């Protein structure tokens, strides 16, 4: 028995590839059959590789076994004759189902599966679950952990989503030219939501959170690998995710607390990701600049630059002005105020902030407290922090605000 190492995550990666190819060949109605066949293939590997060691070409072995299992399954279920006659009417003289596990077909199938799974007719929550299951090869437990949920809930969500796909008669194919841009935007949005789940998650399990970010990056690579979907928005998305991913290590302290940007240990920033972020930003700029992801990626880029750089905050402020005009949301407005304070000073920023009047938004209240703290008005700072404590929603946030209140009360007023 030899112990030669199997490529890490081999089964996980191959799950996505094989399920995509099989489902594409037979349609979404057979997706569960495809999943069963692939799972059984891995069990066969477990039963045989354990004694004889891994075969010379593990992936070829998996594909061969999967094809045999499929053939047997079809023969048993009498679907064989029906499907063969369908194939014969539109193709050549093949008297046997042929499954193409070439690199090209795998890549095409996965991409088309991604489009099918991120269909606008199902909720984004469901899209994310399906993507994680089908395209990332995550198990129910892993998905449940990621969303602080349980296996049964995730299982139901997946079932309902699959039913929706059947009832809407979604096909595994590339959207046509009229639809592709809009469909691609849905996919990009879902990928970014998945990434954000990992990046902004309050789960203490940092491994799980990083996993979600990694899976989002993997899905984006699928888009980048294909000329039809390698465009401005995709590259911008990738750039944004890389810049943010570079700060993952620094974002969480040992006991699981979130460490905000200003307090982060920059030596923990991952330079490889920063370089990738910059690379994809440059790629994205080859097209006309119109995606908000590009603006966000540019802002993320400037955050990797040292504070001593004189253009940093003026650039960030300008970018927020642009972003706000395209995407007017409270979070964007508040982030802009922060940049504003760095450029125009705290007093001016306070005036600007008070124009927003978001009196029940705890992020707004914390921001104002911070600004007042910087001009040494402890009374106002305390007032806003106390209000923020009332309006915030999670325990993590309550604790963080309480810490700020305690710190404020310990410092003597200047």
């Amino acid at each position, binding site marked *: 028995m030899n112990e030669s190492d199997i490529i890490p995550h081999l089964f996980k990666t191959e799950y996505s590839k094989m399920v995509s190819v099989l489902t594409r060949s037979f349609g979404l109605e057979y997706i569960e059959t495809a999943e*069963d066949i692939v799972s059984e293939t891995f*069990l066969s590997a477990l039963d045989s590789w354990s004694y004889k060691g891994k075969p010379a070409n593990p992936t070829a072995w998996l594909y061969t076994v999967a094809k045999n299992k499929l053939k047997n399954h079809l023969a048993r279920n009498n679907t064989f004759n029906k499907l063969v006659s369908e194939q014969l009417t539109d193709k050549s003289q093949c008297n046997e189902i042929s499954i193409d596990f070439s690199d090209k077909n795998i890549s095409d199938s996965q991409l088309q599966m991604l489009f099918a799974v991120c269909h606008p007719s199902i909720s984004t929550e469901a899209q994310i679950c399906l993507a994680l299951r089908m395209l990332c090869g995550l198990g129910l437990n892993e998905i449940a952990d990621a969303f602080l949920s349980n296996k049964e809930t995730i299982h139901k969500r997946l079932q309902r989503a699959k039913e929706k796909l059947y009832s809407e008669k979604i096909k595994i194919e590339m959207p046509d030219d009229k639809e592709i841009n809009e469909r691609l935007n849905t996919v990009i949005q879902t990928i970014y939501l998945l990434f954000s789940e990992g990046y902004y998650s309050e789960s203490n399990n940092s491994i799980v959170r990083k996993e979600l970010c990694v899976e989002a990056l993997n899905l984006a690579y699928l888009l980048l690998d294909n000329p039809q979907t390698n465009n401005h928005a995709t590259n911008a998305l990738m750039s944004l995710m890389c810049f943010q991913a570079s700060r993952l290590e620094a974002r969480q302290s040992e006991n699981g607390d979130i460490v905000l940007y200003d307090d982060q240990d920059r030596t923990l920033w991952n330079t490889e990701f920063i370089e990738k972020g910059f690379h994809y930003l440059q790629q994205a700029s080859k097209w006309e600049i119109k995606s908000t992801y590009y603006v966000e990626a540019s802002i993320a880029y400037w955050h990797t630059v040292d504070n001593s750089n004189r253009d940093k905050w003026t650039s960030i402020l300008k970018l927020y002005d642009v972003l706000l005009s395209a995407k007017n949301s409270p979070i964007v407005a508040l982030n802009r105020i922060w940049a504003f304070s760095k450029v125009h000073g705290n007093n001016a920023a306070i005036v600007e902030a008070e124009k927003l009047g978001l009196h029940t938004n705890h992020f707004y209240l914390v921001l104002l407290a911070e600004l007042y703290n910087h001009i040494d008005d402890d009374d106002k700072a305390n007032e806003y922090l106390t209000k923020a404590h009332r309006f915030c929603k999670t325990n993590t946030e309550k604790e963080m605000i309480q810490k700020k209140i305690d710190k404020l009360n310990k410092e003597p007023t200047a």
Partner: protein
Amino acid sequence: MKEYILLFRHENVNGKVSPEQIQQWMKQQMDWVNSIVAKNKFVSGTGLLFDDAKVVNHKKFVTNGPFGDIKETLGGYIIVKAESADEAAEFAKGAPILQGEGNTVEVREIVTH
């Protein structure tokens, strides 16, 4: 010293065990088998393929199978040397598939003269 066969039965895992998990089990299985080899207690082992399986009945009909309502598939076995069924069962406890709720390892003594 007697010989015992350890029969591995695992249920349909789709949805219950992730691909990553199966791969981990495989690595653990290899390590576990090697640990028995190291003790000089390993006799043989193999997987049992399922795809060309046949069932022959009393009328000599041969069908493909077994399928249908079988919840657990017999996936493979190993044969170990042990003084008693208890000792063999102790070996069996190390089987990685036992991390999956519906899986079992059956321990049977092999008749030797």
